[in-house]
């Protein structure tokens, strides 16, 4: 609880949502995203980590028409509107899967502290950098 900031009655904790599963094969990616959206209303310090098969959630060009399942990938691009702006994607996970950053959707947000400049939400990090992100959290949710 060392890093927790008490601002009056409001407790602000560092929340990390860990995404390690591919979309569509199971519902975990979608229902994790639903938690992130609801959680945004609580004004915590939110980060998302994408590693292992979780990086597949951010693939561009997803088209689910033929499997009859809803395509929820556009929601990731809307995360900025919910002030969810820190998406850490692990380089090693991409490489092992034959992917690069070019395979991912472009996800940006408008920085209210910097004249609403459009900035990238995705941060490529390597494994040890991601471990450091995990280490500094208060609450880690993974589904």
């Amino acid at each position, binding site marked *: 609880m060392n890093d927790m900031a008490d601002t009056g009655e409001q407790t602000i904790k560092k929340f990390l949502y860990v995404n390690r599963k591919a979309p569509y094969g*199971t*519902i975990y990616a979608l229902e994790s995203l639903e938690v992130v959206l609801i959680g945004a209303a609580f004004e915590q310090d939110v980060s998302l980590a994408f590693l292992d098969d979780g990086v597949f959630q951010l693939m561009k060009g997803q088209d689910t028409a033929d*499997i*009859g*399942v*809803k395509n929820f990938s556009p929601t990731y691009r809307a995360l900025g509107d919910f002030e969810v702006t820190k998406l850490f994607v692990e380089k090693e996970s991409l490489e092992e899967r034959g992917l690069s950053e070019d395979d991912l959707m472009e996800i940006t947000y408008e920085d209210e502290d910097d004249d609403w400049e459009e900035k990238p939400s995705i941060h490529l990090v390597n494994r040890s950098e991601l471990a450091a992100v995990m280490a500094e959290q208060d609450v880690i949710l993974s589904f």
Partner: protein
Amino acid sequence: MKFGIVVNEGPYTHQAADTAYQFTKSVLEKGHDVYRVFFYHDGVNVGTRMTVPPQDERHIQRNWSELAEKYDLDMVVCIAAAQRRGIMDENEAKRQGLDGDNIAPGFRISGLGQLIEAGIQSDRLVTFGD
């Protein structure tokens, strides 16, 4: 050709119930027969009529119920697996002293022997699961 279909996972959580549905639909549209669709493990959860998915999502139970009606499919929910997971038809609910049932139209509850029978009677048995 006669197909038997086994569905081992519940709706939404795993894609298995969706893939099984698309596959079964293709089997029927290509003019093959489906001897039986057997729901086992969490697959029994496909057979509850109480799911209310978001409006912009597919309704997995209803998809199956409609397919069953259109093609007169035999859709069997395993009784042992259903009891563990709280899927009941009217008879079972009464027998267990429960105050209501939740089975969806087109599904019936029966024993595991129906799965073995599907294996014996079908030319191909195809399993979908986790």
